[in-house]
């Protein structure tokens, strides 16, 4: 029974993190798939969202600003706004740049964001990061929530305490995973509507035939900035969710571009760029592979050890982490070459006569 619960909880964590990554991939799809913007600064926008959420919702602490203890939903909403604002500023400056240049500029900007978060220690606690970030559903079990409104409207503090004691330890995990998945679904539906709307069709036109779109009088720059901001807003929201999942964020390691930005691009490319479903599929699939590969490799080493009992596997185990990255990198190269359009090809809005399909 315990073992099954264990596997179930692991599966939930895969859905949760995979879902968060899928949301980021959807955001990237707005920027890349809709508008053709090569954003390699994803980690920066996610970080902005995560830090905003953390600073607004955590309790008073000697280590960093905040102590506002705002409701979680407000925190998430604020995360979207700040991320959008940053994207707006960045967009106004950089949007005219062509693909490779925009890529390098966005990396540079993400690095600068990271350095600011790291060095402004009074505000963000610098490299130490912000912890005790309240997680949706789990936060209900924390004293500062059940001793105050609105929970006290339903029952008093002691009733809540015994209620929570009666639930299994992990009761909030399915709820949190569900929250992530429901958010994902809502964002997906919204983007699908956008895709087949006049706005969406115009974005496709701009992406494919920019001179013609300009000639038809469309303000290409403004539309691009819009797409950039919308994508960043989605990424900011994902950042708030990420902060909740991890409960501690730090500027250096949590938002490491080599992992986060790279992984999200892999997800979009493999899943199918320009395609919202592809983005989600890529998100879940790549995260599953990334997480499960550690188990596979460790299992493989254990298997190896049972056959060759005399060999010291110490070095193997230490270097296994690098092996994992190597294999994932090679797998990506393989998929890039064999299936360049990704698993799910792009669905053109005009071609699918019935937008609801």
């Amino acid at each position, binding site marked *: 029974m315990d073992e099954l619960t264990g596997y179930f909880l692991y599966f939930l964590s895969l859905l949760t993190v995979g879902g968060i990554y899928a949301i980021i991939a959807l955001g990237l799809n707005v920027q890349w798939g809709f508008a053709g913007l090569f954003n390699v600064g994803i980690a920066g926008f996610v970080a902005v969202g995560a830090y905003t959420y953390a600073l607004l919702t955590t309790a008073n602490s000697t280590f960093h600003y905040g102590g506002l203890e705002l409701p979680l939903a407000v925190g998430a909403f604020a995360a979207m706004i700040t991320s959008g604002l940053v994207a707006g500023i960045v967009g106004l400056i950089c949007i005219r740049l*062509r*693909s490779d*240049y925009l890529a390098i500029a966005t990396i*540079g900007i993400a690095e*600068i964001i990271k*350095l600011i978060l790291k*060095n402004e220690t009074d505000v963000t606690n610098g490299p130490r990061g912000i912890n005790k970030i309240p997680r949706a559903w789990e936060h209900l079990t924390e004293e500062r929530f059940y001793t105050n409104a609105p929970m006290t409207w339903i029952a008093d503090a002691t009733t809540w305490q015994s209620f929570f004691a009666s639930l299994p330890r992990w009761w909030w995990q399915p709820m949190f995973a569900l929250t992530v998945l429901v958010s994902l679904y809502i964002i997906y539906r919204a983007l699908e509507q956008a895709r087949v709307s006049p706005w969406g069709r115009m974005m496709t036109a701009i992406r494919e035939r920019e001179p013609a779109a300009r000639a038809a009088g469309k303000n290409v720059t403004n539309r691009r900035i819009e797409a950039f901001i919308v994508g960043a807003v989605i990424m900011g929201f994902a950042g708030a969710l990420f902060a909740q999942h991890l409960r501690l964020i730090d500027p250096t390691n949590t938002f490491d571009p080599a992992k986060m930005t790279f992984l999200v691009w892999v997800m979009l490319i493999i899943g199918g760029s320009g395609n919202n479903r592809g983005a989600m599929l890529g998100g879940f699939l790549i995260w599953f592979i990334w997480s499960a590969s550690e188990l596979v490799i460790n299992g493989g080493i254990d298997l190896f050890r049972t056959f060759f009992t005399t060999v010291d596997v110490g070095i193997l185990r230490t*270097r296994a982490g690098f092996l994992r990255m190597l294999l994932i990198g090679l797998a990506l*190269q393989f998929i890039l070459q064999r299936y360049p359009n990704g698993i799910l090809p792009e669905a053109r809005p005009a071609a699918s006569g019935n937008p609801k399909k």
Partner: protein
Amino acid sequence: MWESFGFEFFNFYFIPGLVLGCIYALGAIGITLTFGILRFANFAHGEVMMTGTYLTWTFSMVFATMFGISLHPLLAAIPAIPATILLALFIDRYFYKPFRKSATIMVVIASFGMMLVVRSLVQVIWGPNQIVFVKGIAKPNEAVRDFTSSFDMMLLIPNKHFWIVAGTIIIMGLLVYLLGYTRIGKAMRAVSDSPDLANVTGIDVDYVMRATWIVGATCALAAGVFLSMDTQVLETTMGFRMLLPMFAAAILGGIGRPFGAVFGGLVIGLAEELSAYPWIGDTPLLSPGYKTGVAFAIMVFMLIVRPSGLFKGRTF
């Protein structure tokens, strides 16, 4: 501090900035050539640099065990040159060439992926630990110090810095010759300016591309060896650390302009070291925590204000 009679600025800020600039410059050459001729930002460039340096170390180890003599890094680098070139060509043939006809983003993602693949490969083979390249500390060159102090100056420059600057100048000279006076050099410049026109005039674009990788890899190897001579260690992240400043240098100088890249590299190296100088008062002008930000800020500034770079390179 060693007494330097007012020459602190020169000895402790300017010279180190220049040395760092030389390293950035050599790395940026490969990047700008790849950007100009092959038309994409090669994120794996830093890793090729790093791998070449690891190979140099391996050759010197092998040599030492076989013959008992410990080679100067620059000598050990010689057999590493063909090895690094082969690595660059191998990567191009199997991982970049399939995307020649596709959208640029595919090959950029491929290069990002190769960056991780090559680095992980080195980490698996050589391990993640730091490896000592040169032991001990490099004291300033006594001859130069004594000579200059007799003129009321004081130049404190360790030998390794002389090697690095001299080496860079020599390579620059070779590059001038290659690009200005040889057929292949002129062909490279032609393809960089306009590949279609170059094709029409009968230039073998494939051959030029291979030449680009060869030149880029050699300069990268030089940059890596110089970097290891300066820091006296080898580690697997040395390539990635240098990558973004090298991109900044290439952009600053103008894409496709190798000498622009050199200039850009020197500017960025100097800017990084000089930004921590106490220009005003006693504390550094910019908190050293932000030193890495200097290269990025310059880069972003250039991209916005003048994307063609200082020397009018390609814009896309």
